[in-house]
């Protein structure tokens, strides 16, 4: 694996690796979440970091980035000791960080977000922002991530995927030597992901070190030179990517192999009753004449490019956004005045794609979050006492069924859970209700393979018990793996439909893109 060029590069750096991390430990409230993590990163290389949800990946990176002080352990850059007190010092030492939870300011423009670390000035003594230069630089960065937006646009108008690209552009803006990507592809479609991979290759070629955290093991193997595996805060594996397969990785991550990522499709064909019946749903400028059905026991996927209107469709279905015309029926009953409450009463559930904004009460504990949606079902008046014991029991049950990793289900705020575990909390909230129709928008965003397999299993079980499931996902493999049928959307319309076993990756993507190109 070590070519002549590589060894030359390390010699230039005086033999010391670009980044060396040794024996990192970290405890929160007496719970040790990192138990001695060590690895090295060479210039011009990419290091993959994988591990289950809550295994300590983000925590490690937060330490490297100066956001958290380690309880023990040392770090060195170019052989010189490195102990950043805050992210500014980390940036000065040449570290750029793309956070798992996006860290953009919605009330500022894209250009401002990109320049926030160091606003350009025209006159050095006058603290006046050189807006022209700021804009030009932003435009340049946006071009590098292939994002066709005005730098003056406020970030609150961007879709999640677009935000993620801006976040990546931000990391490119400084003259970083080490770039950390913490699950960068969670809201990217495959096309943007490809673009990102090319970018990573470029960065490596320019001699930068890249740390790449992801739950998509194929990507990790493709991009990285070495892979470090964490389990429960301990480093269990560290080897060259060329020497392993995804199967190996999964096993070292979970401590056990998984038989199948995707659950077997049930032998019995979906039942014939209609669970969800959507007719002529139209909202000018957003969606046009959506008509489709989901049978009981069926899992239907919606594929499409970023901005194709899939999330909007889900929001309209669930009564969060208005529609001009069209009807939605659950189990044969049309929901008259669609509102989240009415939809829930009719048996719908909706897992949103923005877990922090729409999904969680961040300062509250896991149980409180999980119980929230259940409260609307208690068919008593709001001032009647809660059956607290029953709620807690069911909620803990649901939390256990998705294997939420938290040291205290009641007191630990979900804010401090790992990203993947936060997603599981939202999922548990809806599983608790045994919905008749379950809409999932990007359900496995940020979730590890083991948990993914569990979630797919849970969704399949739900379907087998008669729920109609609608899955929106940007991971086409996921749709291929779990869905009985896939609808493809483009520009707010359904443009194609595929039924298992005729699901075909290329055909789905082609359908999603054709219209796009045609309209452009």
């Amino acid at each position: 694996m070590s070519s002549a060029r590589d060894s030359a590069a390390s010699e230039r750096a005086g033999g010391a690796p670009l980044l060396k991390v040794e024996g990192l430990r970290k405890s929160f409230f007496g719970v040790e979440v990192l138990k001695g993590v060590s690895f090295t990163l060479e210039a011009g290389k990419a290091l993959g970091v994988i591990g289950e949800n809550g295994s300590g990946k983000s925590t490690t990176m937060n330490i490297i980035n100066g956001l958290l002080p380690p309880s023990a352990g040392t770090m060195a850059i170019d052989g010189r000791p490195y102990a950043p007190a805050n992210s500014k010092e980390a940036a000065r030492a040449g570290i750029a960080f793309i956070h798992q939870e996006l860290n953009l300011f919605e009330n500022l423009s894209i250009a401002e977000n990109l320049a926030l670390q160091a606003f350009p000035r025209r006159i050095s003594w006058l603290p006046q922002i050189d807006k022209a230069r700021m804009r030009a630089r932003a435009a340049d960065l946006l071009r590098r991530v292939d994002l066709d937006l005005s730098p003056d646009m406020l970030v609150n108008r961007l879709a999640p995927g677009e935000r993620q690209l801006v976040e990546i552009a931000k990391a490119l803006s400084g003259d970083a030597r080490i770039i950390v990507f913490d699950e960068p592809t969670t809201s990217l479609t495959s096309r943007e992901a490809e673009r990102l991979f090319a970018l990573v290759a470029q960065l490596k070629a320019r001699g930068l070190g890249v740390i790449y955290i992801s739950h998509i093991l194929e990507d990790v193997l493709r991009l990285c030179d070495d892979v470090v595996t964490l389990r429960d805060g301990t480093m269990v594996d560290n080897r060259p990517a060329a020497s392993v397969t995804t199967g190996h990785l999964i096993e070292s991550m979970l401590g056990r192999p998984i038989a199948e990522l995707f659950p077997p499709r049930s032998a019995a064909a979906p039942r014939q009753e209609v669970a969800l019946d959507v007719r002529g749903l139209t909202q000018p400028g957003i969606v046009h004449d959506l008509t489709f059905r989901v049978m009981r026991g069926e899992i239907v996927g919606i594929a499409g490019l970023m901005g194709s209107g899939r999330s909007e469709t889900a929001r309209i279905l669930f009564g969060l956004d208005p529609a001009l015309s069209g009807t939605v029926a659950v189990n044969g009953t049309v929901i008259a005045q669609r509102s989240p409450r009415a939809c829930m009463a009719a048996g719908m559930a909706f897992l949103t794609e923005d877990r922090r904004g729409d999904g969680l009460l961040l300062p509250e504990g896991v149980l409180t979050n999980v119980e929230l949606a259940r409260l609307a079902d208690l068919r008593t008046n709001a001032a009647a006492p809660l059956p607290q014991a029953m709620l807690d029991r069911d909620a803990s049950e649901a939390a256990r069924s998705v294997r939420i990793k938290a040291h205290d289900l009641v007191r630990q705020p979900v804010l401090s859970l790992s990203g993947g575990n936060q997603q599981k909390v939202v999922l548990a909230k809806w599983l608790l209700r045994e919905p008749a129709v379950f809409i999932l928008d990007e359900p496995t965003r940020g979730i590890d393979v083991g948990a993914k397999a569990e979630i797919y299993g849970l969704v399949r079980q739900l379907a087998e018990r008669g729920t109609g499931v609608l899955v929106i996902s940007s991971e086409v493999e996921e749709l291929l793996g779990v869905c009985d049928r896939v609808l493809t959307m483009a520009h707010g319309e359904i443009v194609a439909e595929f039924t298992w076993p005729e699901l075909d990756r290329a055909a789905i993507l082609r359908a999603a893109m054709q219209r796009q190109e045609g309209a452009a």
Partner: protein
Amino acid sequence: MWRFLRRLLTSEYLVLLLTALYVLCLWPFAPEIVSAQTALEVIMAMLPLLLLAIGQTFVLIVAGIDLSITSTMAFSSVVAAALMTGDGGYLAGNALAVPVALIAFLLIGLAVGCANGLCVVRLGMPSFMVTLVAQTFLSGAAIWFTSLHSTSVSIGDLPAAFSVIGRGGIAGIPYALLLCLVVAFAAHWLLGRTTLGRWLYAVGNNPRAATVSGVPTGRVIIIAFVLSGFCAALASIVYTSRLETGTPVLGQRVLLDVIGAAVIGGVSLFGGRGKISWVILGVLFLSVVDKGLQLLGLSQSIVFAVKGGVILLAAIIDALRSRILVRVAA
């Protein structure tokens, strides 16, 4: 001993400790402060404040603020007084005067709360402005209303059956105290044990997530304002009957005390956090501070300075406490 102190310092009832400390400090200078009489008077003084603070807590929990409580009190006070005053009241001498007046109090409180809530929810106006407008409007309206019903600036001569609410009691327990206990327990129960309570916190924490989870967000916010208006009306009954007078400037100055007491107790101005027990302690603290200062009979400048200093000190100790908490946990 040291550990006990640390336990006290880190408990959520720290404010209580501070109150006791304050009393100890004042004891040598105003021995009356440790007496049954003082205790009773402090309790009587804090009751209406507590009612107001409880109402305010509901609104603070949903991340709103209600500045209109004082003028709701003033307005309901003069309207109800105009109904029952012996001095040319609409129902002067009528046996129904007192019940009707009580209903008037409550209706006004509910109506103001409802109007505030509707403006915030249906019209999407910020609660600070809505309730500030209500505050200006109602206080102006109360003064005007009084000028139409009285030659002086207040309406007195209220029936004895009404003023007994402020003075009388059952078996030595004042009615006002009973009322307050009932309200406090109800509020505590509502927040901690019912669906509505959960919804209130959820809406204050993250209204979007609450909506998606099927919480009737708008209705919950309206209810919070209605409860606040209702509590203001109850406080107004206590004040008005104690003073035996309906006055349009009733409680004009207590607004910051009420919000301050809630915040000192630990209620967040940004929503989602607060408990009735905390609020009680916050109100108790401010009431005891006031009582102590009254007993000392000091000049106004020193009263102000001491009051501010004590609040600041309480806040500093609280800040230290959270630091210790973090250190203990780490």
